[in-house]
């Protein structure tokens, strides 16, 4: 299945989806651009700190609702620019959690339990202020009735804990990940930090995987303890070199500061942003065509150093 077919099949309008990666690293950008290109609407997005991918999906108008912990891409955008605009204009609805709360929600989904407990957020407005209305929650069977619940510790003061926050499980319709290596059967190997990718994938009903390299033969199965996802939970595997660009992919390439700076400039102005989308996304037929537009010297500049896994001395 190619990316177009996978997105067509698993990402209908209104889908509940989550994407992997963190801020400027290993976002599944090729899949994000394909979703934008197909002008998907009304998506319900689950994000922790996924960053660039979130901002582009929101900026392109694909997203109706976001449950999120953090919208930023480091120094390039301490607050994601199109996200900020969409919230301030009321174009999207937002429900706020913390990074750990979102991680636990994915983990609960992966584990098949309705909630997980934490002490995070006790005493804060994460608990007091709810973004989604009760009507909205009741109208969508894919949403729990409550944002979260606070409960006294049923084991007294066990674990020095008097009270816990219960955060409800997330079951995305589909999770999109970009990984370094995968096999045809879906076996996936992530190198470096996994962020919350593994939990997001296991929580989802379907998983679309893009990868830098498709590995045939025995390489992945000769070291099974290095693989984070077994093939049985993956629905589609699409090899797409530079599939995380302009975000980084550890050991393969760095984020592209030039692109992200240009993006920031474009994102601050509605007309410029429309032009950006037209040229970079709608105007490119697919990932291959898009990648062909990246100047060769930029790809060279961000190529990862084998020792460190990033581009040493990159002009940032």
């Amino acid at each position: 299945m190619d990316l177009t077919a996978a997105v067509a099949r698993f990402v209908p309008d209104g889908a509940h989806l989550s994407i992997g990666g963190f801020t400027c690293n290993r976002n599944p950008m090729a899949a994000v651009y394909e979703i934008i290109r197909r002008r998907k609407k009304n998506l319900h997005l689950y994000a922790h700190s996924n960053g660039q991918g979130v901002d582009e999906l929101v900026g392109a108008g694909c997203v109706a609702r976001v449950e999120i912990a953090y919208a930023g891409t480091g120094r390039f955008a301490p607050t994601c620019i199109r996200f900020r605009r969409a919230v301030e204009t009321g174009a999207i609805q937002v429900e706020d959690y913390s990074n750990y709360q979102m991680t636990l929600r994915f983990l609960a989904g992966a584990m098949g339990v309705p909630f997980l407990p934490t002490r995070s957020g006790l005493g804060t407005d994460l608990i007091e202020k709810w973004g989604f209305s009760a009507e909205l929650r009741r109208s969508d069977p894919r949403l729990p009735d409550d944002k979260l619940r606070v409960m006294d510790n049923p084991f007294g003061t066990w674990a020095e804990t008097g009270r816990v926050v219960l955060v409800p499980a997330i079951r995305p319709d589909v999770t999109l990940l970009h990984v370094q290596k995968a096999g045809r059967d879906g076996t996936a190997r992530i190198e470096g930090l996994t962020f919350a990718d593994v939990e997001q994938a296991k929580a989802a009903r379907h998983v679309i995987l893009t990868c830098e390299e498709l590995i045939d033969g025995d390489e992945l199965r000769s070291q099974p303890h290095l693989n984070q996802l077994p093939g049985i939970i993956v629905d589609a595997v699409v090899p797409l070199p530079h599939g995380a660009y302009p975000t980084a992919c550890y050991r393969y390439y760095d984020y592209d500061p030039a692109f992200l700076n240009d993006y920031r400039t474009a994102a601050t102005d509605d007309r410029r942003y429309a032009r950006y989308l037209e040229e970079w996304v709608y105007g490119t037929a697919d990932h291959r065509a898009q990648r062909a537009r990246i100047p060769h010297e930029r790809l060279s500049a961000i190529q990862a150093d084998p020792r460190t896994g990033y581009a040493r001395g990159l002009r940032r």
Partner: protein
Amino acid sequence: MPDYNARELMAIAAARKINDGEIVFCGTGISMLAAMAAKHICAPNSIIIFETGAIDSQLEEIPMAVGDSRVMYGASSNSGLADSFALMQNQTTGRHVVGILGAAQIDKYGNLNSTVVGDYGRPKVRFSGSGGAADVASFVDRTIIFMQHERRKFVAQVDYLTSPGWLDGPGGRERAGLAGNGPTAVISNLAVMGFDAGTREMFLEACFPGTTPQEVLANMEFSVDVSRASSGSCARSWIPSGSSWAAEAGADAPDFHSICASST
């Protein structure tokens, strides 16, 4: 004109608050500088951790976000968010962690807002949101907070309480069910503030050189006790002088100065 800028001063001041052997939770930008400086000047055995799952990273270049591949290099282990926050929520490891945080607003009890200005349902300004800040502030032994010293940022009441400080004062955290401690220091571009052990209210600990307590107060919506403040000249004692400071602070890292000048 001194041979250090305000961001460098802030990083050094925070570094001096880190004890040797502590686990330092780092966010983006200046908090990484502070943690790196601490390893050079006062806490060589401190350990830097990131919410993304990197534990004891060897930072050859300064990451521009906690998701940067630069945090992955030379770590003791690289895993993911679930593990790093569990390490902080865990009562054994968590009590060795000092978290360094920043925010858009802070109140006198050190409660932080990094979510919205205005009404949550239709905000005037939307910020990034909690990220890991609420988690860290809920779990760890203590926090150090970086702030820009402006009246609209030191506010009587935060528009949205994202990350718990001392909440409503003495006993507030216990009543809410939080185990860890709140902030022990706020470091701004003008001064260093502490929190009174009894009232849990912010007080002025020391002004940076060239700043007066009056100037500090003029840039806050609420008032703080300034009677314990050492003057700018006193604060000089813990600021490295002359050209030595840069070496001490680990300024041999290639882009320390440029990051100091530009990062948030």
